[in-house]
């Protein structure tokens, strides 16, 4: 009886030691994984901020204005003028559905609340 008790105790100690050993390495692995991921997040953040800066740089008003001037033939973009404001009832209803040809609707009108 006593021997059995000792054997069981020793076996459970060995088992627990093995479990603790494995847990230890699993924890280290998880920590290393978390750190890798944090590095990735950090890198992604800095890439994101660079991209945001670049986006802002490419969208700076000077450049857009120059591009609009350069591509005036194709786009015909002009500064917004007061007379471009319209009212909702000035927008024509679409053609009746039986007509197959679709007509372009000018969507450049900007509707703002008064």
């Amino acid at each position, binding site marked *: 009886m006593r021997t059995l008790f000792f054997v069981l105790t020793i076996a459970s100690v060995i088992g627990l030691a093995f479990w603790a050993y494995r847990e230890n390495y699993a924890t280290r692995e998880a920590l290393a994984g978390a750190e890798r991921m944090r590095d990735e997040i950090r890198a992604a953040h800095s890439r994101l901020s660079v991209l945001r800066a670049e986006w802002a*740089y490419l969208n700076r008003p*000077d450049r857009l204005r120059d591009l609009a001037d350069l591509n005036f033939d194709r786009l015909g973009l002009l500064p917004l003028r*007061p007379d471009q404001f319209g009212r909702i009832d000035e927008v024509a209803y679409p053609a009746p559905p039986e007509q197959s040809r679709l007509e372009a609707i000018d969507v450049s009108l900007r509707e703002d609340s008064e």
Partner: protein
Amino acid sequence: MTRTPLRPLARILSARAAGENPNVIERENIRKRHEEMHDKMRQRAEGRLFLLGLFFFCAFVVVGGRMGALATSEPTEPRASAPGATISAARADIVDRDGRLLATNFETHALYAQPPHMVDPEAAAEKLVQIFPELKPERLIKDFTGTRKFVWIKRKISPEQMQAVHEIGDPGLLFGPRDMRLYPNGRLASHILGGASFGKEGVSAAEVIGVAGVEKQFDDYLLDPANGNRPLKLALDLPVQAAAERVLYGGMRLMNAKGATAILMDVRTGEVVSLVSLPDFDPNNRPRPLTRGDQSESPLFNRAVQGVYELGSTFKIFTAAQAIDLGIVNRNTVIDIRGPLQWGRFRIRDFRNYGKELTVENIIVKSSNIGTARLAQRIGTPRQQDFLRDLGFFKPTEFEILEASSGNPLLPRNWSELSTMTISYGHGLSASPMHLATAYAAIANGGYMVKPTILRQSGPRMGKRVLSEHSARVARQMLRKVVANGTASMGEVTGYSVGGKTGTADKPMPRGGYYEDKVIATFASIFPAHDPQYVLVVTLDEPVETSGDEPRRTAGWTAVPVAAEMIKRIAPLLGVRPGVEPAIRADITPASSN
């Protein structure tokens, strides 16, 4: 536990038989019992003391061991950290009212050298000069071959330059990471943003600190790690700012002015939607302040808040509005304007002769100095001072950029009655265009002071009432008439019913007196005049309009057309819909006004 009796019968009986005192036996037994108890308690106390000692010993061993371990080990970052509140070491971004980026950070590198580790200092210096032509080779060689252990070479280098330095391949040339402040829009809103530079500098990091503008004003907010991903939101509108800068620059060139400024302010919130001061600079490469000469010649000088000028006739509306507010006159009261108005040695003249008398309204529309001075006489010095103090002309504006605190208005040292009369038409008191915009906002929003602010506001922030609703409305109608058929007729923009007042003031000479041919032309406007939403103040420094036979310098010919063009461009961007102006009710004066 066996308990021995104190008076054992056997011994008592034998003692009695022997004729001894049995109490002696009892005392003897009590003594023995006490001794026993004493011994037992002592043993127990000793045991406890030992245990306590053992405990303290262990505790001190643990503390000592931990201290030793900490002292001898390398510090490391805690590896497991809870994700949650993100803390960012980078300076917070600055964005405009719609979240468009105005200032952000960019990772670059700084280049430094450790001469003791260099293999071939001369060759390295030569190649460095090829990459960075602005470096001096003699200086580099002197630094590299001398006794120095550490030399900064460049604060910021581009990735291409970094690669080129790598290709030199000298182990003594090293890089440190640097966060660089980047203003992607270049010169846009340069005076608002200010600029940044490096504060405390180490090899592996450097602190980016603001040097001017909002960067300096909000340094604490921007540097706070807790605000790392909460950008500073300004009231500026990027497209409006870009359009305003372009129009003002064109206007400045066309009018041959040497400087110009424009302020666009929301009349209810005090938000400054656009602020331009020309000439401007690139905050990415901020020029050095002038070490000599007039600071106002520097592009760093912010004319909108730092430049204090006599703003001329734009002040007349304050005099008229106050006179109406006090019930001294109404808009149709006729004032004698025969001139020149002699006051001591001083004469007040009008730009041209407007006849014998004018109504208050026409005094503003035609901009009569004499008429305004007469109104100021009736108001009196103390009341005029109180009103101008309420409008904020006695102290720097509270606009939140560093430079605003230096825009201190210049008041007459001795405020005589003559000062009262000249100040009534804008001479003798110098204030910044920002002061003027704030005061016009009070007229535009129905008589409430607002605080000019660069931060995005969530709603109206009206302050103290300085004018009654009625007098503010009459003042607005007069401003509208100035544009409709007065000195600012070029300011008419179809659909926006602009109201405003021109002001042309001779520039003072540094040694006293005024220049004959140098003026500050100002146009302070509100639009739409019947329901004002924005105040626009345009000021040109030394404009000359030369299309006619003789040069014209008055604001009506210079600042007004520029302002009109600006309103035409920016009002649609602001989403202000052009509308038909409701007719002004003809000369109906509510009974409460008198």
